[in-house]
């Protein structure tokens, strides 16, 4: 059965009010006037000539009869001044609803706030949803402040990939020295060291193609130990020196990051191995040198080039970077870590965007983050608006969405699913805002969200 223009109009109006249109009458839950009066107003909107004649006065009469406050001239002008047809009206309502979800996470409140505030406040609020000029970014100086570290040495900044590697080598140096200094005691020393540690030494030395028995004395003798010791000492010394240089650069970079006048992007990663460091660094390079964002001269925190001596300093530095940046890029991996995941959640809780890059081989992870992940939706602790993440699958796509986020060029559609309105980004199909359709939950949520009694 086809829906009449009047029913379509009333359904759109109901959506604007934040009411779920009812089959028995789209405005049934909101209307306070009698049906004859509603018909009279609708006759004026849909005259017998077949035209669509809406103006602010008629819309305000309808709002009044739905127990809502009347809307200002600037509100009407911003959303409805170009409305000439029913389709235009439906589109204008969708534009309003997108802004309502984006800014307030609540249609009812959005109509009250935007519809009745003064012009200055209205402009301030709607500006937050309008595209930014690339010139705001392009006019800045290029971002060349951060020193690079040789790719092969990036992992030396990490605990597992750097510090532990050197510890392992130095334990080998110590054991080989002991054996070398007292060749008569080789068997006795190895017995004292124990099979577990000897096996570990053997595995460590094997990484450098130095055969060492994993148990017993094997063919070890003073001459053989002499050669091994010289080589392993040289390796440890060289690794220590390279690590020292990488750390010095990493510490200087941390100081630079701490004092940057702007920070646009924080990159949340977890790195354990040399390979992790190299992959993350390559990903970051691919994103920020992409022509789509290069001209924006973005300031970004590259964790592969920053170093702090201890976990507390590192944590504080990263928390500040996260706080200062406008956007977080989260790089998903097979095994996620508490630190990285909490950075994702903390960004959303600050009301800022998260772009999650999920590598091509992790399809299930991408779907999990886009649809189901418990951390994928967090409320902004200042506004109560539920924020979701944007999922991308390639560095190029990441750069493209980063530009759209920063310049506010994202496009959206609204879906209704399982009792919730979902604001979906059209290119990635990521849900970035939600509004519950449950009046009981909505009432309790907003009542207690704004309730500031001490706990």
């Amino acid at each position, binding site marked *: 059965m086809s829906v009449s223009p009047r029913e379509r109009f009333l359904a759109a109006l109901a959506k604007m009010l934040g009411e779920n249109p009812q089959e028995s009458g789209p405005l049934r839950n909101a209307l306070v006037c009698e049906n004859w009066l509603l018909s009279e107003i609708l006759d004026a909107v849909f005259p017998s000539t077949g035209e669509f004649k809406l103006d602010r006065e008629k819309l305000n009469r309808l709002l009044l009869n739905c127990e809502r406050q009347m809307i200002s001239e600037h509100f009407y002008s911003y959303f409805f001044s170009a409305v000439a047809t029913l389709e235009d009206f439906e589109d204008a309502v969708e534009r309003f609803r997108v802004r309502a979800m984006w800014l307030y996470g609540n249609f009812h409140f959005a109509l009250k706030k935007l519809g009745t505030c003064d012009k200055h406040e209205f402009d301030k609020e709607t500006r937050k949803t309008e595209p930014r000029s690339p010139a705001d970014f392009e006019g800045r100086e290029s971002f060349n402040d951060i020193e690079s570290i040789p790719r092969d040495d990036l992992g030396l900044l990490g605990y597992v990939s750097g510090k*532990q590697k050197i*510890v392992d080598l130095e334990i080998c140096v110590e054991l080989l020295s*002991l054996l070398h200094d007292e060749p008569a005691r080789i068997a006795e020393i190895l017995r004292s060291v124990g099979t577990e540690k000897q096996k570990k030494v053997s595995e460590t030395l094997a990484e450098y193609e130095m055969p060492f028995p994993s148990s017993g004395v094997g063919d070890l003798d003073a001459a053989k130990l002499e050669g091994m010791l010289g080589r392993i000492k040289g390796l440890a010394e060289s690794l220590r020196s390279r690590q020292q240089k990488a750390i010095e650069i990493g510490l200087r970079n941390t100081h630079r990051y701490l004092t940057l006048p702007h920070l646009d992007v924080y990159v949340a990663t977890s790195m354990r191995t040399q390979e992790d460091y190299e992959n993350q660094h390559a990903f970051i390079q691919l994103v920020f040198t992409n022509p789509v964002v290069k001209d924006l001269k973005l300031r970004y925190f590259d964790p592969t080039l920053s170093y702090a001596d201890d976990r507390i300093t590192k944590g504080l530095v990263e928390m500040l970077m996260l706080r200062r940046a406008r956007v977080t890029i989260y790089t998903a991996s097979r095994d996620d870590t508490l630190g990285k995941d909490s950075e994702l959640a903390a960004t959303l809780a600050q009301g800022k965007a998260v772009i999650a890059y999920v590598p091509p081989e992790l399809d299930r992870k991408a779907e999990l983050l886009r649809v189901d992940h418990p951390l994928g939706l967090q409320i902004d602790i200042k506004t109560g608006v539920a924020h979701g993440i944007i999922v991308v699958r390639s560095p190029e796509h990441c750069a493209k969405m980063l530009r759209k986020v920063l310049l506010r060029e994202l496009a959206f559609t609204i879906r209704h699913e399982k009792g919730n309105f979902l604001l979906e980004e059209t290119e990635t199909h990521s849900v970035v805002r939600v509004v519950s359709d449950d009046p009981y939950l909505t009432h309790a949520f907003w009542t207690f969200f704004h309730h500031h009694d001490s706990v």
Partner: protein
Amino acid sequence: MQAMQLSVSEHDRAVRHYAMRMLADGFEVKARVEGWFQEPDTIGGYRPDIVARKNNHCIIIEIKKGEIDWPKIKALEAFASIRPEFQLQLITPEIASKELRR
């Protein structure tokens, strides 16, 4: 003249050196060397660098980084002074540095 100090990395190297030496000498060793030894228990709120045990004798080895370590050393001294089975061995930065250069 200013007293000698060990950097964190020199200190850690010295801990590895003495821990392995005690191990080779037949002691059961707990040391602050991640991935290789079990950590020693805290003594008076401080974790010593190495605790080596053989028979009923325990040696607490502390590698001194510099003057900054005095509260920890006082706590370890107080602990060892009333326990005859424990012996505290303090390694000064000078000794550790010389040992590492060998």
